[in-house]
């Protein structure tokens, strides 16, 4: 029970991060290899506030997310204005730089030995509520003016500009929203696990999140969440495979990318309307068959 709860909680934390990456990658078409670094900022900033400066958790968490967003703004500046390919480069470089800083500022961060001493404030129900809220926020965002502008500029920046869309600004908004979500997932992680170290937040984690986005469905939020669940649980279920489980994981993802290129769900979203449609279709199906 404890074990399943723990896996579930960690999965929900991943979902928040993946929802953040969804905003950036699936909506705005930007590929970050440094989102995990913002998770680190969330974790460390809140940790320092609580553990070293004795702040209460809640204000610390809020300030940590705020700090991430401010740092995100400066990292974002060059990325939103430059060619799309450079986003991964700048964010990757930022991630590496941040890891270096975390390793070097031993007094504050514990360096490579990691940061421990987090009080265990976070438990499953809190994470569950946070995840649900975050997913709802992202769902609303997708249907908002910014969501639409993101999709528009993902397809054609020049045309987007010609429609009056302030491309750098919209990209920045998507980037910062993503940063906020990801860094929140960092805060939750830190105060659930009570320990973090710099190696947790490398570019591969960012890459994994991108994979989850694609695995679930090109631009489906539902799909991204579903795949976060599957791809986090999959390795856990495959523990017995030991070394082979990553092979298995990679093969599954490659198969989906190859044979179901739109991802598991394509663009389908779990909305009341779509569920109704699905239901109706089934009904129609049964009607038809019974009619025969």
């Amino acid at each position, binding site marked *: 029970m404890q074990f399943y709860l723990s896996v579930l909680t960690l999965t929900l934390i991943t979902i928040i991060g993946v929802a953040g990456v969804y905003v950036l990658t699936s909506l705005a078409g930007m590929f970050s290899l440094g989102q995990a670094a913002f998770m680190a900022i969330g974790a460390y900033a809140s940790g320092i506030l609580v*553990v070293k400066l004795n702040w209460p958790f809640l204000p610390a968490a809020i300030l940590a997310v705020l700090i991430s967003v401010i740092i995100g703004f400066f990292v974002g500046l060059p990325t939103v204005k430059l060619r799309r390919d450079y986003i991964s480069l700048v964010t990757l470089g930022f991630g590496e730089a941040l*890891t270096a800083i975390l390793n070097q500022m031993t007094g504050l961060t514990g360096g*490579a030995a990691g940061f*421990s001493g987090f009080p265990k404030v976070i438990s499953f129900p809190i994470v569950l509520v946070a995840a649900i809220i975050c997913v709802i926020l992202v769902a609303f965002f997708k249907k908002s003016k910014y969501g639409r502008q993101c999709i528009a500029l993902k397809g054609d920046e020049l045309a987007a500009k010609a429609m009056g869309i302030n491309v750098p600004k919209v990209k920045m908004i998507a980037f910062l929203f993503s940063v906020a979500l990801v860094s929140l997932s960092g805060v939750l992680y830190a105060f659930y696990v009570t*320990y973090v170290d710099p190696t947790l937040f490398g570019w591969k984690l960012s890459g994994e999140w991108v994979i989850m986005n694609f695995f679930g469905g090109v631009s489906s939020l539902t799909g991204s969440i579903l795949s976060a669940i599957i791809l986090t649980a999959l390795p*856990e279920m495959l523990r017995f495979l*030991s070394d082979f489980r990553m092979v298995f994981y990679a093969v599954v993802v490659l198969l989906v990318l190859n044979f179901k290129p739109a991802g598991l769900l394509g663009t389908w979203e779990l909305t009341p309307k779509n569920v109704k449609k699905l239901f109706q279709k089934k009904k129609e199906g049964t009607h038809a068959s019974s009619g025969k």
Partner: protein
Amino acid sequence: GNKTETSEKKETETETTEKTETPETPETPEAPDTNGTASSGDTIKIGALQDITGKTATLGKMIQAGAQYAIDEINAAGGVNGKKLELITRDTTGDVTEAINAFTLLATQDGVSAIIGPPVANIGLAIAPLSEQYNVPILGFAIDTAVLQNKDGVTYKNMFLFQPSDDQQGAIMAKYAINELNSKKIGAIYRSDNAYSLGLVDGFKSYLSESGSDAKIVQEVQFTATDTDFSTMLMKLMNAGADVIYAPNYTQELITIAQQARAVGYTGPIIMGLDAAPPFASLAGAASNNVIYINNITESEPKVAEIMEKYKAETGADATNKFFLGYDVVNILADTITEVGEDSVAIRDAVEKLTGYEGLTGIISINPENHQPQGLEMYIHEIKDGQSVMIKQYSAE
């Protein structure tokens, strides 16, 4: 559904009552029945929370192998209290998040009496606060003492260390550098993104400053995982006039450092940690000459040599020091269980009082205050003509 629920409740109840107990109070006799973590049935289960895959798998696998070897020996001799020992291994994959899941499995589902802990500090650090929730002792090897205490300096009740800490190991090497090599100017090269490396440097430095000797670190250089070129860094040490180079790093890095140091013309002594134990000398070839290292074991010890030979014959692999750490800990556990039974709380209390256990990795006594081994000696070796020669036994104190 209902049944498990009630038993769970019981579990938490016992937990809370135990938490309020003072350490001196002896545990209640009925504890084994109510404590869900104690093993029952015809085997006694011992958990191994080890890095079986991932970057540090070589370490974890060796500990596991040593533990298994010891268990096989014990079972062949009839087991403990008439029961066989069984090793349940859970893989941390060297990743903190995975390690937590693995630990939770061991502590809540596998019903182990004790856990043989991970070799890497980061994993240990992540597990430590969690370990307070459960009643399973973790006998580990992560040499960072932060693994043993929380941030307020209170010792975690279930965490134990079974080899000299990084402070102690660093001190042993520093002591040797000052006393035996008469070094005045030391150059240090270490990995800044590796806790193990950093810990050994800290231990070394604090000994230097506390010893009052005039030897000092004249130059230190750090590298990170993706650095390929050490020659620039080594030249910096040489330029600073270092007469000894201190390199507390992993074996694969040590090979490169030794090779490149010799290539750029450094011929002086290089002091290394445990990682320069065999097979380092055979791997680094001529570059390994004039390397001094510490080890938990020495091959000149007949029992060690015998096991090594036997293990090699059985598996074709070489048993390293990690093997013997795992081996010793299982034997300590077996002794303890013989004495106090298989209840994990009883084992914990007994381990806390362990004194004078004569293992292959030295004479082990646990300091009940901080759960570290006390006065544990290490063997200093020097590599000459490709051969390791044991020079001295040293403890930090």
